[in-house]
């Protein structure tokens, strides 16, 4: 301390006081050590007992998924309580014995139980879900055997339920346990093994909103691993509720109209893009798919030749047949290939090179202009204008109407169909375009394919005077906790570059199709309807009368329509697989859908929009009074 002389007295005083700090520190640390000695040595065995016999398990509390309603507040998806069985390996003394017991009590495959017990994150202390949706009987059985089943825990969870069963199945989708692949993705980062997520339909598309947030509780368990006391440290948050644009009543009617046949019916509000109904048949019961299926059941569904899981409205790709003539008419007039009064002579066939393209009507329609060609669906007229326009002009207009691209509806895995062009063929087939192929494309055959939703959107765009609105399925999302409702406004996708006069001409012709053309069976006494029939050939092999052809080679029937003609409020596309002619098989279905709609919303006849949700949503109210037919 040779340097002390340099310090002033303050510093000396200060440094002397440090002694107090040292004494104080030693005193306090001694107190701490004493306390720790008391805890660890004197009371150590007591706390060790507590830690061993009075242990705590942390259990995930699954959130309730958001509810799904239709546009009128009719409940489409809710949750019902169900029992789930968890096993905590730490508390299991005899694993083989437990598996054997559970397998006999629950009638489960022992290998499956073993698999469930050995997968999942976390150590032996993390409870693993072995089975959900236990019946009350099974749950009671387990509870009555609980003394023989250490480590087994029955937990009440909420389980997805679709009160309507098969109704709107493709649209709603179904839920299931998050898969191992999904867990790798960022979207599912906050989930864990056993979490339930949407796997199809809006359940999947809006999963983030509907899912909710899981909570956690600490469960104190006794030596057998049975719950003694629980402390909820983090309450789960229910997911948001979805209000769809569909009308459950109309949806049901559309599905019943298809009945046992395969096909799709899409109904849109052309002014807002609201999907009023989207039926696809054959269907499935989402209640069944949301359960854990056995391998055998799953294979049965996936390998079913009629492909019930396929949403034909958005994923079925079909040649549009003569419904494509709506697009052709707009393209021909706008590209100045023809004028409304240009006449084409139809003799029942069109000679191109050494090949004769036939008209559907043997003998032909005689001399026809655009209006007549649409009314009677004259093929030769469109062969001729198609040939004059060329495939790339056709493609340009088809794309403007939204073909060959996603409509943007909120459903996963939407297909886009094909709008052929010279560039497309070079790219997809590595072949040049042959002029003869233009002739097939001109009547919606050949390479052209579309989905029923796309066709509903095309006819809706025509009905809406060329303004294309994106089809939408969800009107609003409501936060359950705050009651705040986020509206999804309609979005305009674009305007097709078509003159008003052209649209007016097409609409007039389509109205005549129903009054005096190929779709007289769609004529309604309630409302004016405009539409276009289509018959999509599935095979070139056409010999003999229709009824002699095996069903799977028969043509698909199309009808696209809108109503009321004066101020359209509904656009419909009907596709009935292998049902023959559009005029006879599809047009009546479209008429029924349109009539059901105007009966439910009579104001649309007076040009007043069908308001969305007219009253506040009444949960579980399936019994909305209706003027029914």
């Amino acid at each position: 301390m040779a340097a002390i002389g340099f310090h002033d007295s303050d510093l000396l005083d200060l440094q002397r006081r440090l002694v107090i700090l040292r004494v104080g520190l030693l005193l306090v640390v001694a107190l701490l050590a004493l306390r720790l000695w008391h805890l660890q040595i004197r009371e150590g065995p007591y706390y060790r007992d507590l830690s061993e016999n009075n242990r705590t398990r942390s259990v995930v509390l699954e959130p309730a998924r958001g509810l799904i309603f239709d546009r009128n507040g009719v409940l489409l998806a809710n949750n019902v309580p169900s029992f789930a069985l968890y096993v905590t390996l730490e508390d299991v003394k005899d694993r083989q014995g437990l598996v054997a017991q559970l397998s006999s009590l629950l009638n489960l495959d022992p290998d499956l139980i073993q698999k469930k017990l050995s997968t999942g994150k976390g150590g032996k202390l993390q409870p693993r879900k072995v089975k959900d949706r236990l019946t009350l009987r099974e749950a009671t059985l387990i509870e009555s055997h609980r003394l023989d089943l250490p480590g087994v825990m029955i937990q009440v969870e909420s389980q997805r339920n679709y009160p309507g069963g098969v109704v709107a199945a493709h649209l709603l989708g179904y839920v299931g346990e998050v898969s191992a692949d999904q867990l790798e993705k960022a979207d599912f980062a906050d989930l864990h093994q056993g979490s339930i997520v949407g796997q199809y339909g809006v359940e999947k598309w809006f999963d983030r909103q509907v899912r909710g947030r899981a909570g956690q509780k600490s469960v104190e368990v006794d030596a057998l691993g049975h719950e003694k006391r629980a402390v909820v440290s983090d309450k789960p948050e229910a997911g948001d509720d979805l209000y769809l644009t569909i009308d459950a009543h109309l949806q049901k009617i559309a599905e019943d109209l298809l009945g046992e046949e395969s096909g799709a019916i899409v109904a849109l509000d052309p002014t807002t893009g609201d999907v009023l109904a989207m039926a696809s048949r054959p269907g499935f019961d989402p209640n069944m798919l949301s359960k854990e299926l056995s391998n055998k059941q799953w294979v049965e569904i996936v390998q079913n030749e009629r492909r019930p899981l396929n949403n034909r409205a958005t994923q079925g790709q079909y040649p549009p047949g003569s419904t494509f003539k709506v697009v052709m008419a707009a393209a021909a007039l706008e590209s100045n290939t023809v004028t409304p009064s240009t006449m084409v002579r139809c003799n029942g066939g069109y000679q191109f090179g050494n090949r004769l393209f036939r008209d559907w009507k043997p003998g032909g329609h005689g001399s026809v202009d655009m209006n007549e060609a649409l009314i009677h669906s004259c093929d030769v007229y469109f062969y001729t204008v198609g040939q004059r326009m060329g495939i790339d002009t056709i493609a340009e207009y088809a794309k403007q109407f939204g073909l060959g691209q996603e409509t943007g509806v909120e459903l996963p895995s939407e297909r886009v169909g094909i709008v052929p062009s010279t560039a497309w063929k070079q790219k997809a087939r590595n072949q040049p375009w042959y002029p003869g192929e233009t002739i097939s494309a001109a009547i919606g055959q050949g390479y052209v394919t579309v989905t029923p939703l796309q066709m509903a959107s095309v006819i809706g765009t025509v009905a809406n005077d060329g303004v294309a609105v994106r089809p939408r399925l969800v009107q609003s999302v409501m936060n359950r906790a705050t009651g705040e409702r986020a509206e999804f406004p309609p979005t305009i996708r674009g305007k097709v570059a078509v003159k008003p006069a052209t649209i007016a001409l097409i609409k007039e012709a389509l109205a005549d199709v129903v009054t005096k053309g190929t779709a007289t069976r769609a004529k309604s006494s309630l409302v004016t309807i405009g539409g276009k029939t289509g018959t999509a050939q599935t095979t070139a092999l056409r010999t003999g009368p229709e009824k002699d052809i095996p069903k799977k080679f028969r043509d698909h029937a199309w009808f696209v329509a809108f109503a009321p003609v004066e101020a359209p409020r509904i656009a419909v596309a009907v596709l009935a697989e292998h049902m023959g002619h559009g005029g006879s098989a599809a047009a009546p279905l479209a008429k029924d859908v349109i009539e059901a709609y105007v009966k439910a919303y009579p104001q649309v006849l007076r040009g007043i929009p069908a308001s969305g949700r007219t009253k506040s949503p009444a949960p579980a109210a399936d019994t909305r009074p209706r003027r029914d037919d």
Partner: protein
Amino acid sequence: MIDRVIDSRGLDSFDLRFMGLIAVILSVGVLSIYSVTHSQDTAFPFYLKQLVWILLGTIAFLVMYLSDYHKIARLAYPTYAVILIMLAIVLIMGKSSRGAQRWIPIGPFAFQPSEFAKLVLVLVLANYYSRVTRVGWMHRVVLPGLIVLPGLLLILKQPDLGSGLSFLAVYAAMLLMVGVRSKALGIILLLSVMLFPFVWEMVWASLHDYQRQRVMAFVDPDYDPGGKGYHALQSRIAIGSGELSGKGLYGGTQSQLKFLPEGHTDFVFAVYAEEWGFVGVLVLLALFIALIWVSLEIAARAKDTLGALLAAGIVAMLCFCVVVNIGMTAGMFPIVGIPLPLVSYGGSATIMTMASLGLLLNVKRRRLTLFY
């Protein structure tokens, strides 16, 4: 300008001992963090993140060690102003955790200004007392109190009771060193600061549940939501069940379960005590005493008032955090959010503590210059 000359002899055995102690305590921390979080499947686990903090802390240590502490002290007031602004920002837009707002999000990380505020306060007070004549109550107690007040209020408003108490402890320690003339008064002051938590616990125990909840709801609303002492009990069980020799690394059934929240942060001592037992606890306490002892040595041999005050303030802050953290995990104090220095996981706290220790060694380094 003799004190501008720095020691060019490099590290001596004292420095190595000092840094060795820091390294050993840091390792205990990383090991415990690893033990409690290793089963979590994350791309960037906590122990690796803590290693990153330690790396940044080492840089902070070196910066504080290599610059002249007189220069650092001259920046005290502007830095304090910046910290006050940041504390205000936290209140307005900070990231909330369990009802309290303590963090400012910076990219994927969160920055906790109240941690750094403690060190800045030491600098401010040391700077103040080393310049101001120690005459009269006004200059010795009231004015420095007014300096402390805005920071203290902003921290309590978050609310962060733990950091607020540390703030008070630094002020009290400074008062003890220079603020009060009478040694007896100083002793009373020190003892009351050090024993306050113990007394608090006794008063606490005499209160009814609803009274406690009312008090806690006032000072720290959401610390133990719905737990009703559950958190504190689980921490006691973890420590107690470690008994003499502990359950071994990864063997802590209490802490391996997720029931003990904050097992890697504020309650890391419980994890350590469960796995290493009373023996391990004594070793860790001895390590902390050694580190503090060495630090006090620096304070005692400082060449000027500023150095001595800086060293004393840092030591007081360190002592307070160690004692209160261990005391609260052992169920002696109510639970307030104070991390265990150098052991608990946390970027702001680790960097701040290492910066403080760098400053300490800086003070020691300069006392030798007088022999030249």
